[in-house]
């Protein structure tokens, strides 16, 4: 990658993250003022992980995200209108407003493959997409995103074992924010990292600073390249910080004092790689775009109730 390509990438990442952050801030206000159509799990502070990882994927690569924040669909190319449309349960959402609350954004044309809200259920779905690519002879890659808490599910093990034995083009991407609702990672994990468990599956494992979007991009880029070359899965663990509560409105009485100790705002980290005036303009545009999209969504209609019985079967 040339220096100018790298600079361009930084701008792209910063733009994604600025929009994600503006959306977080606007939603917090919206939820406070208007109530909300459902559960919201804020992603503030974790934008760099999703943005960097997603940028390392092609449009036709398969993304299976875990639903904290909205950086993932934004980064993979979904517009604000379908994202906010779903959040507010409007027919303009990517699911037609069905998948509001706990969001189920999807757009197969963008490789945004949706969410499984029983956590840990997308490891094997992602592996199945990777297997599909392998069987169809394409060089597509599938990425399975998950949290530190979700690494405990048995599905983590079954899939990585099988995917490694089959050398599937799969990337395990962990956002380790050190907590699962109120439960600290160190209280449920006998190892310091999740990456070190990769050896048990004969695959490479790497820890990367998830506050640094470019570092994440590089680490995931290597894993994607390896997968595309037919060398099988990798595990990338991004160390991130959950700035807010588990859900919007979480009183967080459990929150330990040192919880933000290693936090650096990922927008600040990336800003140093972007021209200052450009960054300011991006931030401002992002706020405007989000405000406009939110207004549009509020004005958009709810879906017709008949959608409840639609699409149970094809």
């Amino acid at each position: 990658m040339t220096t100018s390509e790298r600079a361009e990438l930084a701008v792209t990442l910063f733009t994604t993250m600025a929009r994600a952050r503006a959306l977080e801030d606007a939603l917090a206000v919206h939820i406070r003022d208007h109530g909300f159509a459902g559960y919201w799990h804020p992603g503030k502070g974790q934008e760099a992980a999703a943005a960097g990882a997603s940028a390392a994927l092609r449009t036709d690569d398969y993304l299976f995200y875990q639903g904290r924040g909205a950086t993932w669909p934004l980064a993979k190319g979904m517009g604000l209108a379908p994202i906010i449309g779903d959040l507010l349960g409007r027919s303009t959402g990517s699911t037609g407003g069905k998948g509001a609350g706990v969001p189920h954004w999807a757009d197969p044309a963008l490789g945004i493959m949706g969410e499984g809200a029983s956590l840990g259920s997308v490891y094997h779905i992602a592996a199945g997409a990777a297997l599909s690519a392998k069987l169809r002879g394409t060089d597509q890659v599938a990425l399975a995103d998950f949290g530190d808490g979700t690494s405990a599910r048995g599905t983590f093990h079954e899939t990585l074992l099988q995917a490694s034995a089959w050398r599937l083009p799969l990337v395990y991407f962990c956002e380790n924010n050190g907590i699962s609702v109120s439960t600290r990672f160190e209280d449920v994990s006998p190892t310091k990292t999740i990456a070190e468990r990769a050896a048990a599956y004969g695959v490479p494992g790497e820890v990367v600073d998830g506050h640094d979007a470019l570092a994440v991009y590089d680490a995931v880029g290597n894993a994607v390249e390896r997968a595309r070359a037919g060398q099988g899965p990798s595990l990338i663990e991004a160390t991130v910080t959950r700035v807010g509560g588990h859900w919007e409105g979480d009183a967080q009485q459990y929150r330990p004092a040192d919880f933000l100790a290693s936090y650096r705002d990922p927008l600040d980290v990336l800003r140093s790689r972007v021209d200052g005036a450009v960054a300011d303009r991006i931030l401002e545009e992002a706020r405007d775009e989000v405000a406009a999209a939110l207004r549009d969504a509020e004005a958009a209609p709810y879906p017709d109730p008949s959608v409840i019985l639609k699409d149970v079967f094809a």
Partner: protein
Amino acid sequence: MSVETAAETKVISYDAAQGAALAEEMRRDPTVFLMGQDVAMGGFFGGGRGLVEEFGLERVRNTGITEAFMVGAAAGAAMTGMRPVVQLGFADFSLIAGDEIFQKLGKWRHMHGGQFELPATIIMPIGPSGGAGPEHSGSMEMLPMHFPGLKAVVPSNPADAKGLLKAAIRDPNPVLYYPSKQLNFKRGPVPADPDLLVPLGKAAIARPGTTISVISYGCMVPRVLEAAETLAAESIDLEVIDLRTLVPLDREAILASVRKTGRAMIVHEAPRTAGPGAEIAALIQEHCFYALEAPVARLGAVDAPIPASRFLEDLCFPSVTDVVELARQLARA
């Protein structure tokens, strides 16, 4: 003395009533302990607040995201002298721990010739909760009706939430305890007496009546009772049966009521098709065929995944109006 006639009561929420049951049983019996995600902070729905302060982290155990482990470990602990209580965040996760619940907890005693007792309680909240989505709004209580070896409980009010949970914990069998999330913050009088249980297997007549037997449980009971008020003005006098327990099912209470009224409908939060209402309707027509004046009617959730949108969610479950309208039809039939 029964719960209904208890001397001293306190008005608390359905959720807090579960917490009170846990605290009392843990105080009474040192073999009772709790496992689940974030139970030390009071659980996802907060009912267990204060438990960790009183009983410590050994007996109020935070687990990882390991539903299969929790239930399997409960089986192992139960067969070796403990009385584990597992808190699953959502009843939907019973499908993650399906082998552990239905093939192990439910069968271990029988398949090993009766040599073990498995006094484990699994708490699994059912139904919608304001947009939790298709994978977190399920009603799974028909499973133990079909798969043998597990008792199953669905309380409809705070007093029963406490009394049934206490009975579940003391029962020598595995009990699946399904609180209805829609009732979490509903408050009501709850007996303070720590020795008061609501026995498993006994239905309650929530409202005596003469026109139609309405068999219901959980969060639909208050809706049916509300419908009954409206209908009373039209001389449609509902007899409302709150099942409380699905396994064992209080067949006598159901059949006696239907023999009296000659008309029956079942209302539940679970999907309509092949839900608990199917078994109950089949049972009623088997035993009350000649007493029935009209077919047994059923109301349940839509036969579709529950959308995450709160706007759509509300439309998926039987409403007071649905009950009123169906009862009117049935009274006329």
